[in-house]
């Protein structure tokens, strides 16, 4: 089975700036794939290319086995001789940046645009509205919607016809906490419920840990790191954090016994650990040296911490 999305050697430049440089990426079927990167690294350009809003200078984009762009000779060379393959576009549902809505239409009228163009029956409107919990607002004019409702409506539009690939740029932007939870749950469940593969970009790394099955980090226009989220979690260093009455004494005690420990700014002591036995040994050692322990907990490095350490410089 081909990948749901495959990018091969994608390059894109604007005047004298190379935004994407030989970008290669494969998104497996049924995955919830997070696309990470700092501002200006080429994330938005990649998403614009994936949704047919921009064309690459070089390379190929294949969606579920269908090439998104075809190159040919054109009368006007300024169009880059690239045209978008509508058959590939019809496999995608997209939400790019802020929702694009027509404020003068009702939610149902707005969705009927996508329905008409994709050749879907009108019952699809009620289905997607209920998926994003907007069924009671079907006949309300979009201009009266809150930002969160607009975001939900845009997601509903992207979900029309159960696309094979859903491409979302910052999908939880503007949502309230319960809306964020609902949308995360919805997106995480989509591969199982409808077979839709989800590809999304976000700056919220907590979201990635909660939703994604795989992620990639874009830097300077090419993929710098890519991994399954479970593999990444397993590979992350774990540590023990303790709060004690005498941190300096505890630190001396632990380093004296060969533990790799350090004193944090907030007075806590952090010790790199490998096994549960080592954790028990730490507690025994501190009690033996008369160091009172107020609290002790096991800590894994978060994706946010990892991303900040590894990819922000």
């Amino acid at each position, binding site marked *: 089975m081909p990948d749901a999305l495959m990018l091969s050697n994608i390059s894109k430049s604007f005047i004298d700036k190379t935004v994407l440089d030989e970008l290669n990426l494969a998104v497996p079927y049924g995955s919830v794939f997070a696309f990470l990167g700092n501002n200006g690294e080429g994330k938005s350009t990649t998403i614009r290319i994936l*949704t047919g*809003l921009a064309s690459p200078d070089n390379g190929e984009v294949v969606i579920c086995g269908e090439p998104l762009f075809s190159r040919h000779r054109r009368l*006007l060379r300024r169009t880059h001789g690239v045209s978008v393959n509508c058959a590939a576009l019809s496999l995608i549902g997209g939400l790019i940046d*802020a929702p*694009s*809505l027509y404020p*003068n*239409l009702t939610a149902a009228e707005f969705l009927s*645009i996508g329905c008409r163009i*994709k050749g879907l029956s009108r019952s699809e409107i009620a289905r997607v509205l209920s998926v994003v919990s907007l069924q009671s607002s079907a006949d309300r004019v979009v201009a009266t919607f809150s930002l969160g409702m607009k975001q939900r409506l845009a997601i509903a539009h992207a979900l029309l016809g159960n696309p094979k690939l859903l491409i979302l740029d910052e999908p939880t932007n503007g949502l309230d906490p319960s809306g964020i939870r609902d949308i995360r749950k919805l997106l995480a469940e989509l591969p199982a419920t409808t077979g839709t593969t989800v590809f999304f970009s976000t700056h919220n790394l907590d979201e990635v840990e909660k939703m994604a099955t795989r992620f990639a980090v874009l830097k300077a226009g090419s993929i710098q790191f890519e991994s399954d989220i479970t593999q990444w979690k397993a590979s992350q260093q774990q540590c023990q954090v303790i709060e004690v009455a005498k941190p300096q004494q505890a630190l001396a005690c632990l380093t004296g016994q060969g533990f790799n420990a350090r004193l944090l700014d907030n007075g806590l002591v952090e010790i790199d650990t490998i096994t549960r036995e080592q954790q028990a040994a730490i507690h025994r050692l501190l009690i033996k040296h008369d160091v009172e322990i107020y609290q002790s907990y096991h800590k894994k490095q978060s994706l946010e911490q990892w991303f900040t350490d590894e990819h922000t410089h």
Partner: protein
Amino acid sequence: MNTPTSMPQQLITLFYVETLKLKRTSVVLMVFVLPLLVILFLLGLALKSQDVSLFTAENWQKWWMGVAALWSYFMLPLFIALISSAINGNEHKNEGWRLMLSLPVSLTGLYSAKCVLSALLTLLASLMLWFYGLLGAGALTLFGAPFDPTAGAILLFSVPSLWLASLPVLVIQHAISWRFGNIIIPLSVAVVATMGIVQIGSSEFWVYYPWSYMMMATLAGNDELRQQALVIAPALATALFWLSAQFAAINKRAG
């Protein structure tokens, strides 16, 4: 999913979609109100300037010619600019380009559907002008003017000619509005171009000035000039449409 694939199918779908997008906008209002303003203005002028009970066949003809002149020299070019800006402005204002272009539609299809919609609304507005003209003429008879339907019938027959002659301007304004989000640009073009209609239209250079075709098609004294305008206008409109449709992709999908 049954995405319309053939161009005629796509055009019909996109035409429906573009019509839907005009719901609750001022576009429909413009179609009905702008021709009415022309008639109200000329009705007021007729009532103020002379005793309508003495209206002769010549006066009636002048009144209807006034209707045609004010519409084709002034209001129609502005109406076309406003309609094109509103139809394309819908996308510029609401980031609709992003939505439409991420859907499986061809840019040429979208460009064509918007242009056809502008053309049909222009035809509808010209028909409304004739209808309001009839009401205006009826109002004049209420003020004592003798009933004479002849000149009104002539204006009705000139509506298709006027529409055909307006097509090159319509394509130009559509192309400008498609490209530029700022309504000032298409409106400035319309205002400046409208100012030259009478002067250039009465000269031998009218052929090179699409804005003068509407005047030539409806008000030219000689049939030969009228027919010339009616041959040149659709031919030029077709050529301009083909050329502008080639450019439609630039700065939309190509960027």
